[in-house]
C-alpha cells in the first residue's frame, strides 16, 4: 500500500499489515477491537486471581494466607483491575468491532486516535498494576477515600501508581469516547437515521457521552490528590483545613456515571442477542432507547447514595434517596422489554443466548438489592457490609460480564470466521452460572448478618464461617469455568467449524458481510431503509402477519466481483499513535519514579504528535500501485 519512501511524514510509513508489526501499527478498528478484547481478557484473569486470593484468605476465620497489608492491596487492585482494565476495555473492544459494521461504515472517524486509545490503555494498565512489582500496590481501596490516601497514611508509592495510572487511562477512555461520538454522528450509512440504529450503537453513544463528561471530574480529583501528596497542598488534609468529603463528592460524581458506563454497553449487547435468537424484533425499541438516555442523565443525580452515612443531613440524603429510587424505573422498563422480546418468540438456546438470558436473571437480582440500598434509612444497616459486595457483583459480574461473554460467543464467528464450540460453551455457561451464584449469593446473607466488607479476617463466634467457605468454593468453581471459556476461545479460534457470513440469521448489518470481515468492511456502503435492515432484506411480513423469507435476489447481494475492492482506500497504518502513547505513559510513570523520565516522555510525546500531525491519512502514490488484497485474519 504505502511506498515506503519519505513522504509527508517524518519517518518512513509502515508498509505492511502482516505479522506482529502489522498489528503494532494498525489503525483498523477491527484489529484494535481484537487487541482490546484480548488484553482485557488477560487483565480479567489477573483480576480473578486477585479475587481468589481474597476469597482464600476469607475462607475460614483467622486465616493467615496473606498479610493484612497484602490483603488490603488485593481487594484494592482487584476492583481497579476489573473495572478499568477488564470490563471497560472489553466494552470498548466491542465498540470497535461492532459499531462501524452496524452503521455501515468502513472504520471509525479517527483511526489513528483509535490506535492511541488502545496503546494508552495497555500502558496505563501496566502503570496502574506496576505497584505489585515493588511490593507497593495501592492498598487504600479503589475508592481511595482521603485522608487514608494522604502521604501521612499511605506513605509508600501505591497511591502514586493509582493516581498516575488512572490519569493515563483517562486519556485512553476520553480519546476513545470522542472517537465513537463523532463516528456515530457522522459516519452512519445513507438512510440510517437515529431511530433505525441498533440499540448497541445507541448504548455506545450514550456511554461515550458519559465517559467524556465524567472522566474530567475524576481527573480533577486525582490531580488534587497528587498536589496534596507531592506539593504539600491541602485539598483533603483535614489537619490543615482540607475536606475529606470533597474527595468523596468528586469521586462519586464520577463514580456513579462510571457504573452506568460499565452496564450500558452490556445492555446494548443483550439488546442485540435476544432479538436475534428469538427471531423477533426488540420489544419497545423507542422506550429502550429513551430509557438508556434517561439512565445516562439521571446517573448524574444519584451520586451521594454512595455517601448515605457521611452525615449529609436529612434533606440531602432524602433527595438522593428519591432520585436513586427513581432510576430503578428505566432499568426495570428495559428488563420487562427484554422479557417481552422473548415472549412468543422462537428461542434458540445457543450459548450466546444463554448468557443473555442469564444476564437478565442475575441483573434483576442485582437491581433488587440496589433498590433496597436506595432506601437510605434501612441502608444504614447494609452500608459497608457484604450485602453491598453481593449487589455489586451481581450487577457487574451477573450483569456486565455475562453480557460481554454473550457478545464473545455471538460475534466470535463474525471476526474469526469460525464458530465457538456450542456443546462446550453450554457446559461452560452452566458451571459459570452455578459458580457465580454460589460465590456471591451467600454474601447477601452474611452482609445482613453484619459482616463488614474490606476486612482481612473475622472471628468464629460471629457465625459467618459456613457461608464464607461456601462463597470461596463457588469462587473457585467460577474461576474454573473461566478457564474453560478461555480454552473454548483458543480451541475454536484454531479449529472451530467454519462460519457463514450469517450463522445466526441475524438482524443487523454486520451479518450482511463475509466472516471474517474484509479489511474494507462493506464492498458497497449499504443504503439503509429500516431498523433491523438486514432482517428486512431477508424477510417480509405480509398483511396476514406471517413472515416469509424474500426469494433469492431480494437479499443484499454482497458480490465482491461486482465491486472493485482494490479501489477502496482505508487509512494506512502508522507508528505515531504508539510513539505518542509511549511518551504519555513515560510522562505518567516518571512522576512516580523520577521526573527525568517524565521529561523524556514529554519529548517523545511531542515528537509523536508532531509526526502524527504531518502524516497524511494515506500515502499519496498508492492509486498507481499494484497491491494485494488485504484481508483481516
Amino acid at each position, binding site marked *: 500500500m504505502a511506498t515506503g519512501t519519505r513522504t509527508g511524514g517524518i519517518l518512513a510509513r509502515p508498509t505492511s499489515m502482516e505479522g506482529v508489526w502489522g498489528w503494532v501499527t494498525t489503525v483498523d478498528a477491527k484489529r484494535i477491537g481484537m487487541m482490546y478484547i484480548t488484553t482485557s481478557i488477560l487483565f480479567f484473569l489477573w483480576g480473578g486471581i486477585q479475587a481468589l486470593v481474597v476469597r482464600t484468605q476469607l475462607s475460614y476465620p483467622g486465616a493467615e494466607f496473606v498479610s493484612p497489608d497484602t490483603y488490603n492491596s488485593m481487594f484494592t487492585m482487584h476492583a481497579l483491575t476489573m473495572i478499568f482494565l477488564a470490563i471497560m476495555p472489553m466494552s470498548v473492544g466491542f465498540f470497535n468491532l461492532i459499531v462501524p459494521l452496524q452503521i455501515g461504515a468502513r472504520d471509525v472517524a479517527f483511526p489513528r486516535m483509535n490506535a492511541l486509545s488502545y496503546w494508552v490503555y495497555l500502558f496505563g494498565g501496566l502503570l496502574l498494576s506496576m505497584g505489585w512489582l515493588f511490593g507497593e500496590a495501592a492498598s487504600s481501596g479503589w475508592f481511595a477515600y482521603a485522608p487514608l490516601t494522604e502521604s501521612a497514611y499511605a506513605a509508600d508509592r501505591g497511591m502514586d501508581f493509582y493516581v498516575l495510572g488512572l490519569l493515563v487511562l483517562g486519556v485512553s477512555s476520553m480519546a476513545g469516547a470522542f472517537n465513537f461520538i463523532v463516528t456515530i454522528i457522522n459516519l452512519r450509512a445513507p438512510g440510517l437515521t437515529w431511530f433505525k440504529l441498533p440499540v448497541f450503537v445507541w448504548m455506545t453513544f450514550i456511554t461515550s457521552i458519559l465517559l467524556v463528561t465524567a472522566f474530567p471530574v475524576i481527573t480533577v480529583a486525582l490531580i488534587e490528590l497528587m498536589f496534596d501528596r507531592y506539593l504539600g497542598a491541602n485539598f483533603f488534609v483535614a489537619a490543615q483545613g482540607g475536606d475529606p468529603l470533597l474527595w468523596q463528592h468528586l469521586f462519586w460524581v464520577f463514580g456513579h456515571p462510571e457504573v452506568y458506563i460499565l452496564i450500558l454497553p452490556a445492555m446494548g449487547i443483550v439488546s442485540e442477542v435476544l432479538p436475534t435468537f*428469538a427471531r423477533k424484533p426488540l420489544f419497545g425499541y423507542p422506550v429502550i432507547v429513551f430509557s438508556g438516555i434517561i439512565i445516562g442523565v439521571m446517573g448524574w443525580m444519584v451520586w451521594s447514595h454512595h455517601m448515605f452515612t457521611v*452525615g449529609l443531613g436529612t434533606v440531602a440524603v432524602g433527595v438522593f434517596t428519591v432520585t436513586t429510587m427513581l432510576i430503578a424505573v428505566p432499568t426495570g*422498563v428495559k428488563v420487562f422489554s427484554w422479557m417481552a422480546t422473548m415472549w412468543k418468540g422462537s428461542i434458540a438456546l445457543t450459548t450466546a443466548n444463554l448468557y443473555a438470558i442469564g444476564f437478565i436473571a442475575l441483573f434483576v437480582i442485582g437491581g433488587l438489592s440496589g433498590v433496597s440500598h436506595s432506601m437510605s434509612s434501612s441502608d444504614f*444497616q447494609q452500608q459497608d457490609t457484604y450485602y453491598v459486595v453481593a449487589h455489586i457483583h451481581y450487577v457487574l459480574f451477573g450483569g456486565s460480564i455475562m453480557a460481554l461473554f454473550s457478545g464473545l460467543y455471538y460475534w466470535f464467528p463474525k471476526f474469526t470466521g469460525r464458530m465457538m464450540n456450542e456443546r462446550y460453551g453450554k457446559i461452560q455457561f452452566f458451571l459459570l452460572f452455578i459458580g457465580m451464584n454460589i460465590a456471591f449469593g451467600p454474601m447477601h446473607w452474611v452482609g445482613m448478618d453484619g459482616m463488614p466488607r474490606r476486612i482481612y479476617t473475622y472471628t468464629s463466634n460471629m457465625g*459467618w464461617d459456613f457461608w464464607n467457605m461456601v462463597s470461596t468454593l463457588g469462587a473457585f468453581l467460577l474461576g474454573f469455568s473461566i478457564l474453560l471459556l478461555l480454552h473454548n476461545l483458543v480451541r475454536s479460534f484454531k479449529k472451530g467449524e467454519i462460519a457463514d457470513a450469517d450463522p445466526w440469521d441475524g438482524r443487523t448489518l454486520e451479518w450482511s458481510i463475509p466472516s471474517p470481515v474484509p479489511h474494507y468492511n462493506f464492498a458497497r456502503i449499504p443504503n439503509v431503509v429500516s431498523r433491523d435492515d438486514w432482517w428486512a432484506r431477508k424477510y417480509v411480513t405480509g398483511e396476514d402477519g406471517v413472515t416469509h423469507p424474500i426469494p433469492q435476489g431480494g437479499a443484499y447481494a454482497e458480490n465482491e466481483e461486482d465491486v472493485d475492492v482494490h479501489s477502496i482506500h482505508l487509512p494506512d497504518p502508522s507508528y505515531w499513535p504508539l510513539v505518542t502513547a509511549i511518551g504519555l505513559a513515560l510522562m505518567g510513570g516518571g512522576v512516580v519514579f523520577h521526573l527525568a523520565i517524565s521529561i523524556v516522555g514529554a519529548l517523545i510525546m511531542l515528537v509523536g504528535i508532531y509526526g502524527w500531525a504531518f502524516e497524511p491519512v494515506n500515502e499519496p502514490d498508492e492509486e498507481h500501485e499494484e497491491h494485494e488484497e488485504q484481508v483481516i485474519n
Partner: protein
Amino acid sequence: MIRAIPLLILGSMLMLSVGCTPEHLMSTFDPLGPVAAEQKMVWDFVFWAMAVVFVTVLPMLLYMTLKFKRKEGDPIPPQTHGHRNLEIAWTVLPILVLAVAAVPTLNVLKYVLEPPAGSMQVNVTGHQWWWEFEYPELGIRTANELYIPVGKPVQFNLQAKDVIHSFWVPKLGGKQDAIPTRTNVMWYQADVTSPPEGFYGQCMEFCGTSHANMRLRVHAVESDAFDIWVQAQKEPGPVAEDLSELAAEGRDYFENMDFTATYADGAVSKQRCVYCHTVDGLGISGARTGPNLTHVASRRTLLSALVTNNSENLTSWLDNPQAMKPGSRMPNPTLTDAQTVALVEYLQSLK
C-alpha cells in the same frame, strides 16, 4: 419441566429466608432498640417488595425460556414491536410502588437522624484502630467499651482523629461515619439489657491495616447499674499505697520509666507509657494518643474488643503489639520480663 415452576417459586422463597439468623452477634435482624426497629420495618417493606419481584420475574423468565424454545420447523414468530398500554403500565406501576415505599423510608430517615431532646451525650472519636468515648456531661473518658442506661436515648457525636471511621452496633441501629473535620450526630437507645459480653459493634469504613480489628462493645445496663458504673469511672487510679508491691512498681514504670519504642514503620524513639496513655491521678495526665487506661481492668476486652481482658493477653500485647494488631500505632516497648510483669500487675489493678 414446566410443572416444576411452582416448586421453583417455593425454592426461591426458601432461599430468601436462609439468611435469617437473628441470634448471631452482629445480625441486623435482631433490633433491640427503636432506631434498629424502625430501620428493620423499612427493610421488611422493601424485602417483601423484592421477594414478590424475585418469585414472579425469575420463574417467569425460566418458564418463557422453556415454553418458547425453538423446535425444528417452527415458523418465524409474529414480529411484535411493542404494546403501548403494557409499556405505560410497567413504567407507571413501579413509580407508584416506589412512591409508596418512599414515605416510610423518608419518615424513618428523619427519625433515625434526629436524636430526641435530652439524650445523654457521648462524644465518639475514631482513631486508627480504637474508639475513644467521652461523656461530656458526666466528665468521664474511656475507650472501646461503652456503657449506656437501658431505655434512654443516647446521642453520639462522631469525630475522627486521623482517617474516616464508621460507628456501628447492628442490634441498636444503623451506622454513621466518623470523619475528620466534622461532627456527625446519631443516636441509639437500647430497650433491653445486653448480655454479659455486650452488644457487638465494629468500625465500618476501611481505615487502614487493622480496620478488621477495630471493634467495640456496648453494655446496656439498668439505670442504677449505670450510675454505679459512672461513679466508678470518675474515681482516679489507685495511689501506690493502695497497691501491691509489684503493682506499685508497675505504676512507677508506667509514669516514670523511659523505654525504647519501635514503631510499626520502623521509627525508634524513647517513650514512656504516660506520654500516650492517661491514668487519672498520675502526675502527668491528659494524653489522648492512646486509650485512657484509668479503668482498663474493668473492661471485658482489650485492643478494641479484639481479645479477652486477662494477664496473658496483656503480656502478649506488651511483648509484641504488632503481632496482635498489625500496623498498630502502639510501638513495641522494649521491656524486660520483670518490667512487663510489674506493668501487667499494675494495669490489672486499674479497676
